[in-house]
């Protein structure tokens, strides 16, 4: 757990770490149901109430408690972000390593495929996947993962290529270790640093994309709540009920801020090259 | 007659609490015009830090002078304590009065600018020469350090020249304003032997021509005899030995460990 201690020693790591931890707790509380009110229950008589004692963050158009919806919204946005980034990481590692390790033929096709994916404007690719498969949580996860995989593939392939030529890999070969062993044990461990940094930044980016997709009506589906959906629902009510826009917007902002700060801290801690540099 | 440079009881520390982690503990030495002082010591003995403290470049590396004086006699004859001088004054002295060359010529020149430009910059800064005159002066400076066909080389970029050639450019830049003191921080360590000899010969020639003081930092004891008038041996931030070169005690003071 030295990593945790060094994170909290790092100035921005401390802020980022606490924010992300706080969000995880809120998300879990949301999922478990520890919310002030039932997030889906419509108290229609209390429609569009400003923040008050009973409704800490006010109520929305259908009279649902914004605070409770925010909690499951954070959970939903987290699930979508974590799942999509995890999927993209796994795909990225598999593709990146195969491209780096087998070289020439494999490398060419995989990287060209990645170019094709990267060529697509991100929102458009997500839009096409979602319109084909139909909106919903898992399609958003797939869409965001699909858009982010090329980036992860590149992040993995770069260092993997250089590592491949390094002595300790040849040394491992002389010990007769099998290819998969080398790939998994040696290569991966060395990729942990750049990957963790990329993952935290990708999480921030995934949160943003999920919000963008919901704004275009393609993300999480009502009555479920996600930060992006709450924002797009609040769009036309901005004047009548500003609290509907303010709370989710801040939630997203601080969430992404947390991820970015954590990402910065991790980069300084894990990335040997810049270990000496002032944070 | 006051010395060109006299350092007394110099203390230098790093990080948030410079006093606690002090690196240089009370160094003192003097240097007269035309004289060469060699500072010898293994890496980590504080010799480079001492050198960098003279023109206060140590401040940029996170270091801080915590005690002692560095009295330096300016061209105008006035004596100034560099340890306490404000940065504005120091900026005027660096380059004009005190020149410096470093160990890694390959990385000590800005990769993005041509070498002519980088030399002309000092002329523009300290002599107010305009573009054309500054370039003219740059060519003279390069010829002075025996670089053949200087005019054509002006437009070259650092990566197009060899280590030895680059070190000559460094020397040309440092001496462009005929500084009264030149600090050479292990100038030949990164060069192969033949070029090393040429640079050393060049340095001693230039020193004779201009009555310039030279502080020569090295960990290679062999070089000291050829160039130094005075020697100071440093170990763990302290001066363990000072005096004329080639005194036998000198050799004993180098800990055995450093030979292997």
């Amino acid at each position: 757990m030295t990593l945790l201690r060094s994170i909290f020693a790092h100035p921005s790591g401390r802020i980022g770490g606490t924010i992300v931890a706080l969000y995880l707790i809120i998300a879990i509380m949301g999922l478990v149901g520890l919310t002030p009110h039932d997030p889906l229950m419509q108290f229609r008589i209390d429609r569009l109430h400003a923040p008050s004692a009973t409704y800490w963050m006010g109520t929305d158009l259908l009279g649902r408690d914004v605070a409770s919806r925010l909690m499951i919204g954070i959970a939903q946005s987290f699930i979508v972000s974590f799942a999509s980034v995890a999927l993209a990481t796994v795909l990225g590692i598999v593709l990146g390593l195969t491209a780096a390790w087998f070289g020439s033929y494999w490398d060419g096709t995989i990287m060209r495929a990645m170019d094709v994916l990267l060529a697509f404007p991100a929102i458009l690719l997500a839009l096409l996947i979602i319109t084909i498969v139909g909106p919903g949580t898992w399609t958003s996860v797939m869409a965001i993962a699909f858009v982010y995989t090329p980036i992860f593939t590149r992040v993995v392939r770069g260092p993997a290529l250089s590592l491949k030529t390094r002595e300790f890999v040849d040394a491992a070969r002389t010990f007769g270790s099998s290819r998969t062993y080398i790939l998994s044990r040696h290569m991966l461990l060395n990729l942990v640093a750049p990957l963790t940094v990329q993952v935290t930044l990708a999480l921030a980016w995934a949160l943003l994309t999920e919000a963008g997709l919901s704004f275009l009506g393609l993300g999480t589906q009502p009555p479920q709540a996600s930060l992006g959906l709450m924002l797009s629902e609040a769009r036309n009510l901005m004047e009548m009920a500003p609290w509907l826009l303010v709370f989710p917007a801040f939630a997203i902002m601080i969430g992404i801020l947390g991820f970015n700060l954590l990402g910065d801290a991790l980069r300084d801690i894990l990335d040997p090259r810049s270990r000496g540099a002032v944070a | 007659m006051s010395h060109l440079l006299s350092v007394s009881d110099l203390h230098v520390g790093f990080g948030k609490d410079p006093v606690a982690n002090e690196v240089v503990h009370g160094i003192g030495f003097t240097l007269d015009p035309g004289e060469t002082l060699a500072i010898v010591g293994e890496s980590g003995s504080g010799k480079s830090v001492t050198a960098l403290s003279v023109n206060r470049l140590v401040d940029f590396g996170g270091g801080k002078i915590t005690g002692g004086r560095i009295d330096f006699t300016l061209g105008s004859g006035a004596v100034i304590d560099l340890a306490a001088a404000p940065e504005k004054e120091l900026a005027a002295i660096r380059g004009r009065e005190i020149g410096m060359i470093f160990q890694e010529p390959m990385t000590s020149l800005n990769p993005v600018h041509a070498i002519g430009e980088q030399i002309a910059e000092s002329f523009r800064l300290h002599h107010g020469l305009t573009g054309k005159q500054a370039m003219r002066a740059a060519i003279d400076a390069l010829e002075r350090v025996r670089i053949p066909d200087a005019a054509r080389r002006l437009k070259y970029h650092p990566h197009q020249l060899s280590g030895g050639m680059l070190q000559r450019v460094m020397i040309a830049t440092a001496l462009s304003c005929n500084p009264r003191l030149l600090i050479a921080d292990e100038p030949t360590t990164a060069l192969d032997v033949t070029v090393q000899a040429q640079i050393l010969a060049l340095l001693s020639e230039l020193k004779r021509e201009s009555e310039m003081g030279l502080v020569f930092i090295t960990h290679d004891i062999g070089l000291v005899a050829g160039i130094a008038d005075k020697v100071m041996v440093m170990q763990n931030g302290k001066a363990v030995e000072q005096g004329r070169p080639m005194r036998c005690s000198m050799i004993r003071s180098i800990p055995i460990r450093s030979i292997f």
Partner: protein
Amino acid sequence: MNYLTRRLVTFPVVMLGVSVLVFVSIRLVPGDAITAMLGTEAGLLTPAQRASLETYFGMDQSWFGQYWHWLGGVLQGNLGISVTYGRPVLDVILRVFPLTLELALLSMIVALAVGLPAGVYAATHAERPSDLIVRIVAMVGQSTPSFVVALLAIYALSVWFGVLPAMGTFTPLWEDPLKNLAQMILPALTLGFAFAAAVTRISRSAMLDILSDDYIRTARAKGVPARSVIWHHALPNALIPVVTVSGVEFGYLLGGAVIVEQVFALPGLGRTVLDAILQRDYALVQGACCSSRLIS
């Protein structure tokens, strides 16, 4: 040199890949140009009526036939006819393309103009409170969804200042620079804001690395004043990583452009592609997607 040749060889292959992917995926999407045009009334069409409309939209041929027809057209520079505009796809793209290009470039300029000085300032005041403030502001910039910034901008401007960039129409730069800039400033700021945050962080870390390099120490030893050490020596070297990353980010700008064009009602390439998909205007989607690939 081999990087360029490799790029030239792979470029057509990638473009082909993109066009096939677009071609297939747009046709997999349920609903077609007829339902897009007629909506629920499409149910009233008799089979004969439907058949004639299908020939009009060119949907009667097999997929392979349509792709072959399209590819043939592209080689002669004819990207087919857009059904929603009733005009050749090429004309439509050429009309909407400058807006998105200008928006992307303006946002890039905004990003560099704001991001670089902020990054340099943060690097030169590393670890002091001002550094943290700049970084937090940069982070906030990067973590606010562009449509939130856009919505708030429109609301604030229209209600408090009673002024608003012209919307709906686009006056190209060469026609009326004054009006064009008045219209494009706010969208460019909105899109550029998030991007500026990224530039700030990149230039800050690049500057930090460079300031500890040897040639900066040499410059200082030469007595170069602090200000020109930063701007003349350090910054040119810091630009290299900033420019490379901005190149990559440029592609993402197009994604962001879709939302900014939607909220500010600017008829740009981003929104045209989105509308083309919603209208199932296959030829326009195909042409627009490939051309958006050209600029990124």
